[in-house]
């Protein structure tokens, strides 16, 4: 332990602790901007600077380790003045038209400028302007980038894709697609992790709210909305709703209040996914054992883009099941259109997703059933624009039949959830009876790389792995290819933590409480009377009335994709 004094307070900290951490552990708050724990501790913004007695120059508290006997001041005149100058310098190259910024009210720089009482700037204001394709799902606004390097680090270290890089030198140093390439010419997965880690409004999703509003205003359209499981874990954070108020029923109420004709739940489609993917898994098990190569989940579009660009040879190992969004889209414009007795052209299908890549997925050829994808953030913005106080909105049930979901479907939104839901139903398919719904909870957790082995009885032992973040996806594929590890079924989510921390999720400036968000979903699973996808009465009804059975020809047509063929067609294009 190291003894030191910060702002007059005698404290102890473990060796190797930074001043920032040591201060935080003792209730002393040092402002940060570029800092991102474990990923970006580079002292670039010089906002977290502190003064150490005996040293003339200020030190960055995020990047300076404590030393025995150190006396630190985090708020001395020297620190305050220097910090303020640095903030003003950052602001001088930042487009602070905050009123028209997508991150207004959710911006670290705006908060700092407010906290430090910056009411004027002596420096000339000039920011970088550069073109960007506004039709692209991921948008970089050069006028707002403060070169904190967070996006570069996240893409490098968490996603192992290195889409972003520092370009140019000297005063012209900037952040852009690596080697000044076009974003369309690099292997971006559209995971959106750069967006949720951007402290300002330099990165954001393409805003599709207008498209949705136009549909809502169009009397000839039947508007259907589905909402992904993870949205309910965090939407309230962006609306100032406490967790106990930010229920899924209130979410349904919000969507009703916005004016959608039918408010459905992607959880229903998640249950469908389990039916299809679980059945597919069992039919492929022989091949899996023979080749020594697992089946991979296919519900995360960021992951799909990743495997296609990084490991094209492994694409045949993907499940052919569409994502829940895709299944839902296909069923609303077929099965549900029939129930309504309307032409599918009348339906305008909206999905609310905690995801950026889903915006891209909806534009794929065989996904034409989805007309617009909103992120959780866009949903919140759309709601706020209706001037209704979310807390005043009544809780309501989702509409039937496509609003019925099981607990197994809800946990799709968190890493390990798809695997657990699949295991619950696969067990049933093997044994013709349900396991205890919590039998597979060992696979839960927020570790990036988890493995497990489950004995189904009847001689079936299933080896599974769950990874999240694309660097872990890369790691596990390499391990499999090197023959170091063998699995039957592998779940991959592109975003760390899964959809609860998706690229379209509400942005928590302090990094998001993933344990709390995952707690919401597991809580909903726990209290649901239905905890097995195969017991979802509306899923059963859909098969009975429409699809026949899992993997039926109709299912294949509506609910599955041929990834290898798609990749070939794309290559031809």
């Amino acid at each position, binding site marked *: 332990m190291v003894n030191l004094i910060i702002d007059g307070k005698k404290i102890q900290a473990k060796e*190797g602790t930074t001043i920032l951490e040591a201060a935080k552990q003792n209730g002393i708050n040092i402002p940060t901007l570029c800092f991102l724990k474990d990923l970006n*501790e*580079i*002292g*670039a913004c010089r906002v977290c600077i502190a003064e*150490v007695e005996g*040293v*003339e*120059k200020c*030190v960055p508290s995020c*990047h*300076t*380790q404590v*030393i025995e006997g150190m006396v630190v001041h985090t708020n001395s005149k020297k620190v305050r003045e220097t910090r303020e100058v640095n903030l003003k310098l950052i602001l001088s190259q930042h487009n602070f038209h905050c009123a028209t910024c997508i991150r207004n009210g959710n911006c670290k720089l705006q908060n700092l400028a407010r906290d430090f009482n910056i009411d004027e700037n002596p420096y000339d204001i000039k920011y970088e302007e*550069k073109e960007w394709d506004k039709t692209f799902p991921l948008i970089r606004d050069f006028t707002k980038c403060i070169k904190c*390097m967070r996006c570069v680090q996240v893409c490098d270290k968490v996603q192992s894709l290195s889409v972003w*890089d*520092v*370009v*140019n*030198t*000297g*005063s*012209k*140093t900037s952040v*852009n697609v690596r080697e*000044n390439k076009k974003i369309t010419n690099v292997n971006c997965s559209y995971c959106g992790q750069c967006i949720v880690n951007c402290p300002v409004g330099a990165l954001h999703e393409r805003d599709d709210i207008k498209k949705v509003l136009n549909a809502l205003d169009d009397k000839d359209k039947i508007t259907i909305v589905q909402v992904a499981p993870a949205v309910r874990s965090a939407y309230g954070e962006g609306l100032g709703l406490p967790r106990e108020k930010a229920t899924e029923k209130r979410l349904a109420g919000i969507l009703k209040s916005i004016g959608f004709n039918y408010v459905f739940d992607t959880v229903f489609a998640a249950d469908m996914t389990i039916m299809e993917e679980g059945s597919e898994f069992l039919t492929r098990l022989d091949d899996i054992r023979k080749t020594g190569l697992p089946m991979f989940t296919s519900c995360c579009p960021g992951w799909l883009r990743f495997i296609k660009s990084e490991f094209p040879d492994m694409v045949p190992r993907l499940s052919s099941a569409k994502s829940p969004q895709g299944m839902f889209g296909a069923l609303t414009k077929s099965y549900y259109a029939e129930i309504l007795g309307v032409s599918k052209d009348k339906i305008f299908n909206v999905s609310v997703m905690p995801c950026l890549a889903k915006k891209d997925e909806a534009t794929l050829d065989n996904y034409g059933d989805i007309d617009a994808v909103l992120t959780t953030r866009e949903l919140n913005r759309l709601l706020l624009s209706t001037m209704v106080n979310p807390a005043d909105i009544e809780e309501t049930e989702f509409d039937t039949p496509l609003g019925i979901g099981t607990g197994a479907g809800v946990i799709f939104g968190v890493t390990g959830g798809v695997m657990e839901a699949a295991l619950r139903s696969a067990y049933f398919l093997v044994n013709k009876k349900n396991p205890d719904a919590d039998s597979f909870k060992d696979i839960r957790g927020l570790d990036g790389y988890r493995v497990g082995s489950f004995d189904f009885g009847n001689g079936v032992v299933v080896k599974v792995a769950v990874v999240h973040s694309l660097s872990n996806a890369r790691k596990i594929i390499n391990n499999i290819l090197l023959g170091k590890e063998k699995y039957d079924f592998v779940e991959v989510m592109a975003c760390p933590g899964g959809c609860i921390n998706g690229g379209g999720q509400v942005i928590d400036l302090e990094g998001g409480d993933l344990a709390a968000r995952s707690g919401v979903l597991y809580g909903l699973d726990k209290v649901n009377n239905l905890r097995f996808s195969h017991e979802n009465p509306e899923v059963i009804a859909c098969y009975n009335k429409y699809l026949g059975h899992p993997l039926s020809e109709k299912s294949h047509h509506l609910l599955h994709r041929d990834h290898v063929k798609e990749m070939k067609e794309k290559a031809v294009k």
Partner: protein
Amino acid sequence: MSRLTIVTSDQQEIVREQLYKDLERRITASPTGLCPVDLTSSFVKMCLSQSCGKCVPCRIGLKKLSKLLDKVLDGEATMETLELIKLTARSIYLSSDCAIGHEAGKLALNSIEGCFEDYKEHVQNNNCTCNSNQPVACVNLCPAHVDIPGYIALVKEGRYDDAVNLIRHMNPFPITCAYICEHPCENRCKRTIIDAPINIRGIKRVAIEKSKNPSLPPLAEKTGKKVAVIGGGPGGLSAAYYLSIMGHEVAVYEQRKQLGGMLRYGIPNYRFPRTRLDEEINFILSTGIKVELNASVGKDIQLADIRKKYDAIYIAIGAHNDKKICIDGEDATGVISAVEMLRAIGDGQLTSYKGKRVAVVGGGNVAMDVARSSIRLGADSVDVIYRRRKVDMTALAEEVEGAEAEGCNIVELMTPVAIEKNPDGTVKGLRVKPQMTSIIESKRPSPKDKNADEVLIPCDIVVASVGQGIDSKHFEDTGIHVKRGSIAAMNTGMVGDQEGIFAGGDCVTGPATVIRAIAAGRVAAANIDEYLGFNHEIVNNIDIPRVKYDDKNPCGRVDLGLRKPQDRKNDFEPIEFSMSDEEAAQECGRCLRCDHFGFGAFRGGRSTKW
């Protein structure tokens, strides 16, 4: 009223002088890969501040030029702007009255013409072709990419074994380099911005002096693959060392009696003691390398036979052929080459030069080695004949100074014309023609004949130190591609279409530095490993001490002390002292730890495996 006053420097002038010095040092320490447009724009602004303002092209032209350059930087320029920049720069060059203007114009013109692609990229895509992806200057400039801030931090903590192990991770010749590396790592040391570069080689010397038990890295499982290394110099042994660690069976074929190559047969003991060289080589061999001495490929053994026995071959034969001066009388008795002389010394044959007058022809480091060795062999006088000026010599300044201090006489601006013989065929003297320095071509002023009579420098021995060639004949004959005498290897070490044959070091690049040969050996080892179907990772797990924060106030650089010239010139014993503990601590403390600060914090100051 006084008619005249003495000029005294006022406070402003003192500050200005200091600013110039600060800027000079800063330019010396410039990182590599900077944007030429940005640099030119700054330089033109500085030139403008020097303008006296009398003439139009300088006063107005430079101002406009700087604005135009800024337009390029701001992405507001068109291709026409670039033409205007060229035209303006050329006009400033052509019509300025004095150097302040015309050289500024030329600077801008050189920049835009030489880096036109970058200017174009700015105009067309508002991008620069450069980026700052070179975090640590010393590591980047070391051909072997040794983790310099890492070992400096270790020496500072007294962890000498770790320091040496860390060096060996990238360079198996730490002792050698501690004595004789040309230390390109120091060239752009960021510390220069504050005062002077860190004495990196000096700190390495401390590490190797104090290290008692350096350890071999773990040896990989035997692969069953066999690699032959031709040439037991630093390059060949570096490749052999890493290949051996990777588990391959390595045999080194050396044509001479002992290993070491130019380290033994080119560098005299006073610069690098043999005992230390042997220690270094023994450490390398302890990885299990087999050695065939007196095995000259082409004479004692044929390349074709080696090819049959081994899965891969690394050719690292160096550049050991001497070159002739090509003047009359070179066949006289008493004319020898530097290579010949140093080779004999390397094998311990110390012929006495007592009573002899020696003339050395050449101005490189090797010329200094033979000159200083001649003094040690007892020569009455040693003249070093060089056709350019002393300052133009390619030898390191400290080598020239050392030679002079030991009594060598530098005869600059003299070109050898002929060697005059005595009737018995021995050397009578070297006839030289006086030269004058002249126009600068390819960075060095070239000499030209002076209108003066030839001079005879009486001497008994002439040592020709005018460069070395490569003995590549046998390899060429067996089908290895040779280009102007050098073996034509790629930057991966691979030799064209020759399956399994790699080459590197002096025999590929021509005579260069030890550290470049070492670096080439490591590159070859990695690529031979891959060629053999493996991907062995060389990893170090040495934890590097944390940075301690203090203000970096200017402080002098500790240089290594030397034995007094009058003592050292009488023997071949080492001449350079290491630092004291106190000096080492201070010098290590000067390191700015670029692995931790600046760009190093962002892009990681080190790689721990390759």
